[in-house]
């Protein structure tokens, strides 16, 4: 571990994992935390419990804002454990001078998203700090959900299973990049930020046995697949061509030297089911997003690793993203 924390330690990839392990897990160690799922499963598997903080810049971006993100993020972590989001807390840290109108706009958008999830805010906290102490506004949300589908876990993957994505990948990351100050990129991209519980409910209602499920936030699809491969000690073999990516996202990736599978999503999840459930799961997912597709299968070729198979017969590892996401320079 380095002496000081750098931006790379918050990237959702390798450095982030190192920070969590060498500082937080070391001191907070317990059996529930050790499972490192999207949300903790507590009370004999009845409840899912999670927390998340939101620091996005800019606060308002095409297709969403920090408020929508703050509700989606926490509710989605619950939904990914097969839980129905129920009770949420909301803490905000506000920089002195922040426009009240903007705050209300953000809170309204939180309300709208809570309704989609059928969840309510039951407790909260407000802190105002002097100018410069935070960048405009940070939000933390914590949530409790009622587990409706038991046994979802990153360590359940087995040889022969199928891996699907719920829609085209990398949209949120690309949208934020394009919207950031200092990058003169015009695009019509919109974030994928959305509440996933309704889609998860459809899967459960269709009787699909969900093996593993995770929303591909920071670190993108790469991080999810790598975590699954490690936790389950299997190889995830991705067919590179099948990964759905919007043209504009691809364009931004090409220009800045990113890979869409490394970019963050806020309303896209990765799903693992038995081969027998594949067709049905795909049908359900495509009912919401036409771009949902099967991207990978589970094998035992290189245990603990993710590999990408190209359409011209070569293969390579797909690693966890590392470092700060920076553009290539030439």
């Amino acid at each position, binding site marked *: 571990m*380095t002496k*000081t*924390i*750098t*931006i*790379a330690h918050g990237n959702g990839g*390798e*450095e982030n994992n*190192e920070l969590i392990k060498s500082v937080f897990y070391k001191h907070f160690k317990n059996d529930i935390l050790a499972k490192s799922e999207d949300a903790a499963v507590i009370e004999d598997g009845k409840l899912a419990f999670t927390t998340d903080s939101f620091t996005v810049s800019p606060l308002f971006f095409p297709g969403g804002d920090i408020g929508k993100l703050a509700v989606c993020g926490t509710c989605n972590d619950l939904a990914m454990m097969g839980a129905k989001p129920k009770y949420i807390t909301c803490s905000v840290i506000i920089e002195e001078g922040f426009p009240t109108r903007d705050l209300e706009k953000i809170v309204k958008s939180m309300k709208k998203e809570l309704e989609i999830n059928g969840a309510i805010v039951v407790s909260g906290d407000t802190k105002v700090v002097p100018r410069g102490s935070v960048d405009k506004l940070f939000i933390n949300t914590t949530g409790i959900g009622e587990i409706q589908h038991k046994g979802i876990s990153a360590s359940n993957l087995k040889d022969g299973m199928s891996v699907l994505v719920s829609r085209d990948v990398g949209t949120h990351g690309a949208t934020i990049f394009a919207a950031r100050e*200092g*990058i*003169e990129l015009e695009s019509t991209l919109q974030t994928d930020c959305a509440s996933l519980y309704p889609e998860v409910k459809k899967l459960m209602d269709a009787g699909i046995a969900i093996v593993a499920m995770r929303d591909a936030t920071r670190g993108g699809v790469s991080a999810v697949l790598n975590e699954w491969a490690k936790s389950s000690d299997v190889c995830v073999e991705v067919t590179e*061509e099948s990964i759905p990516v919007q*043209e*504009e996202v*691809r*364009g931004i990736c*090409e220009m*800045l*030297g990113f890979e869409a599978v490394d970019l963050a999503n806020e309303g896209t999840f990765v799903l693992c089911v038995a081969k027998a459930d594949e067709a049905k799961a795909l049908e359900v997912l495509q009912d919401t997003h036409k771009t949902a597709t099967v991207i990978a299968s589970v094998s035992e070729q*290189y245990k603990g690793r993710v*590999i990408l198979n*190209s*359409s*011209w*017969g*070569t*293969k*390579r*590892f797909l*690693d966890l993203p*590392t*470092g*700060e996401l*920076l*553009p*290539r*320079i*030439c």
Partner: protein
Amino acid sequence: MMNAQIERVILMQELELKNLYDDFRDGKTIQAYAKIIAKDAKKLEKPINIMEVCGGHTHTIMKFGLPQLLPKNVNFIHGPGCPVCIMPKERIDHAYVLSMQENVILVTLGDMIKVPGSNGSLQDARAKGADVRFVYSPMECIKIAKDNPDKTVIFFAIGFETTTPMTAVLVEQVIKLKIPNILFHINHVTVPEVMVELIDSRDVHVDSYNNQIDAFLGPSHVSVIAGSKIYDKFPKDYGRPVVVTGFEPVDAMQGISMIVKQFVEERCELEVQYKRVVNHDGNLKAQGLINTYFEKMSLFRWRGLGNVPDSGLKLRDVYAHLDAEKVYKSVLPIAEIEDHKLCICGDILRGMAKPQECTIFGTACKPTTPIGSCMVSSEGACAAYYKYGNLIDTSKSVSE
């Protein structure tokens, strides 16, 4: 009518975006080139080593797994064309020291902020409170300077012929708009001079001129600016064919196929695979702009390669007042700093070794904790091997 027109425009835009890469990543075309290369390579009398000079090519080659498609007697060796990798530690220390000066905003491009100098990287400097920013276009410095009139913006300029014109445009604007608070630290280097050095260099360890380079894959984007003319002398005076090649996998495979054909047909020529953009003269306007503001440095020290004559650029003396190396001369360290003893970046940059021959590759030296610069930049050979290379047959070494 209006709608039809708009639709056509939209359709055209979509087509353009896709066409930039789709056809050049077509699996069938790539496989077809692999077959042609395999067939021609059977006629080769001895194995050939092709050096891709540019880190962008290294990245393409590894990312798309191209070595897996080539016969055993066609081998890549990776060149020094990664502007971040070749930066000697003392110049990284310059950036670090400059960023720590009071009222300075240090601006640079991409991966540069991750390279460790002797005090740490610019990322570390930022964590300690320095104002370090990375930009996509040097022109963004103007906005930063205008927003911070009481600070000095120092643009730490890096890159080969491809990025030099952008720095030249910024110098031009700073002068034209009379912007008082932008300075430059110039680290621009040029491709042909270092290629000569690689062919002519003596390996100090074994005291011989034992480079393994049989041919060069020239980077297309450098020739978009500088033309293919910069390589005229390599077939003529040094007996090394050069094929100026694009960066998509179909481009690279076609470029390799052209090189193999030259050997089979016993030709030694300069050819251009990337005909869709590159011509012999290049972009004369950009070249003029570079000449207006920059001149050759007699020596530039490259990491691992040492001093290479005429390979670096500096601001012309009339613009010395814009040169941060001169303005901050008193605080900048001057001693040359050697690399970590176990790091073999130097041998890798000269094409004498491959990353997996390094004892600390993937163990002590990883992208998260880089020791050598080749592990830092995504264009560095070590980083590309670490990220993509593990599935590739590593039995092929440079000397094979």
